[in-house]
């Protein structure tokens, strides 16, 4: 799920390993700045303005024609989760935000599907195998989403190419254990790697007895209540995105994060900046109005990249 730096590498590893069927889901199109770390794609893909999932399928079919690959160019959310995730033997994480990971986690727990979590930014990354009924779930680790603007994203903090590669290869290795019938060999700890300081740590994680997801069985991210509310605004080329949490954004932090990549203006009510040809207004409780597009998927991407969560 997701075909950026993590997803493109995971899918390449699995295709080369001869995994029989791969479904690649990603809503985004390839941009020049992606090539620094998204190893499956080329400058020609950028020139051809190809969706990531589509381009990945074409490259992977050239690498191993024996693998059946399905590409889905769409957003994964509560209304599409069943359509795109049902029937999977395993879900591999190539996403870029915690909200969609929570959705995958809910779906995987509800339908007893193993989910290999992975995330990378800057020079560090995490991975954990989430096996329903056996290991803690992602919500045991992160009971709440952080407020918008608080977490680093690859577009605000940057990312060095090797770290998503390392995390992706670890995810692929765990998947190979499972798909080859060796579930007993799966790592049960949370792995943390920082390539800059050279730290490779594992942490033992316990299931939370009060976990909303794996203990209580409340799969909230699979309902319209929990995720972001998307509204295409009346008449204008603009999309409004409102997070469900309503937690306040720290404007100073966000301004600082965006400072290297955009000119940020605003006042105590609003932060405004322009990136990728879209004017973005961010409000106190994380609502954003993305101007210059009526494409909901593009607006969601811009939110994940520049505001985060």
């Amino acid at each position, binding site marked *: 799920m997701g075909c950026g730096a993590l997803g493109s590498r995971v899918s390449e590893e699995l295709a080369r390993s001869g995994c029989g069927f791969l479904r690649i889901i990603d809503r985004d199109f390839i941009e020049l700045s992606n090539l620094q770390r998204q190893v499956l794609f080329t400058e020609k893909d950028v020139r051809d303005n190809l969706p990531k999932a589509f381009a990945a399928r074409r490259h992977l079919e050239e690498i191993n024609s024996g693998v059946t690959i399905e590409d889905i160019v769409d957003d994964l959310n509560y209304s599409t989760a069943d359509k795109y995730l049902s029937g999977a033997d395993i879900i591999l994480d190539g996403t870029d935000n915690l909200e969609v990971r929570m959705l995958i986690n809910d779906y995987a727990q509800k339908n007893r599907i193993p989910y290999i979590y992975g995330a990378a930014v800057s020079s560090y990354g995490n991975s954990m195998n989430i096996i329903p009924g056996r290991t803690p779930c992602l919500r045991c680790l992160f009971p709440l989403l952080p407020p918008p603007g608080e977490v680093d994203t690859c577009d605000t903090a940057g990312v060095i190419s090797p770290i998503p590669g390392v995390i992706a290869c670890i995810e692929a290795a765990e998947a190979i254990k499972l798909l080859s019938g060796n579930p007993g060999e799966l790592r049960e700890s949370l792995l943390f790697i920082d390539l800059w300081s050279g730290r490779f740590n594992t942490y033992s994680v316990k299931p939370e007895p009060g976990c909303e997801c794996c203990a209580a069985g409340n799969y909230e991210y699979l309902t319209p209540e929990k995720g972001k509310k998307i509204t295409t605004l009346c*008449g204008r080329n603009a999309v409004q995105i409102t997070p469900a949490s309503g937690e306040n954004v720290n404007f100073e932090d966000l301004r600082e994060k965006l400072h290297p990549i955009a000119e940020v203006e605003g006042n105590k009510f609003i932060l405004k900046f322009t990136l990728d040809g879209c004017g973005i207004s961010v409000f106190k409780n994380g609502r954003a109005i993305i101007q210059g597009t009526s494409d909901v998927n593009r607006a969601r991407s811009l939110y994940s990249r520049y505001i985060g969560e």
Partner: protein
Amino acid sequence: MSTENKIIYFDNAATSWPKPEPVYESLGSFLREKGANPGRSGHRMAQAAERAIDGTRNLVSSFLGVGSPERIIFTLNCTDALNIAIHGTVKKSSHVITTSLEHNSVTRVLNELRERKSVEITIIEPSEEGYIDPDNIRKSIRKNTSLIAINHGSNVTGALQDAGETALISRKKGIPFLLDAAQSAGAAPLDLGALGVSLCALPGHKGLLGPTGTGILYVSEDLEISSFRQGGTGTDSASPRHPDKYPFHLEAGTPNTSGIAALGEGIRYVADNFDSIIKREKELLGFLLEELGKTGGIRVYGPRSSEKRVGTISLNAEGWSPDDLGAVLDENFNIAVRTGLHCAPGAHRGLGTFPEGTVRVSCGPFNTEEEAEKLLSALREAVKL
């Protein structure tokens, strides 16, 4: 900055809120006590449901000053009523007169007919203040004009059109006249009998204070229109054809019984308090218009006076896009307004506010001067930045 959690609701042009207490009460009690299907069965509960529907029908007809309750059709909403009226009257290759102030619920229906039935459309432009000159309508009439459709109160500027003059013109020429009373019903005097309007579409959930999912179409007795949808009516079931008898001719399927019963309570409230509602809205509107006029950096569009208008004000603030300002009013001041084009792009083209639109403040019967003060102070604070 307001820290209260109570929302200040200035979006009554979209749907009114809050509703009078009996409306809430009726929704619950109707479903509990009279939740049968009206007109389909003979048992007491079905009869009670039918009585409630007929009761609302009677209330509507007397509120609108028409003597024939059977000519009051219950619809899903105002858009549905407009669709029934337009599709039922406009003939193939005929001509329709309308205005650039219309909501998409009229323009999109007409555009569809232009494509499907080769209908020609004349669009009348308003004056700078937003008023349509009925004489321009008269001059546009052709031999094959099959409908004149105009908006009564503008959902963008609040301008209230002279429906009587247009009704007179259409009567003389024998052309059906459709009045879109989406914004005026319950917010301005609307005596359809005296006006001589042949078709009028009204929402139940705006100025009439009923719940969403309710609308009304009035069809005058001297006008026959073709049925829009056919099906079960509970009457004349042996007939293979949909009945010609009103209201069944234009109603098919189980109606929104609880909603219609609750709408009756809304209309009762409006009818009982009509003069004070109008007076209060006018005072509030006058106050807002005056204060906004004095506030630097705020531009108000449409009529300057509180006469000949409904309780809607469109404005823009210097340095703010309407969407951004609306979001700030919501998040930082708990004030609900609507922003953008308000489904009426033609009106914005005329005002020069296309495509960004405006911030729309729409007053209802329960807005207070204190709320208006809070809105003004929020706008002043935003403009200062």
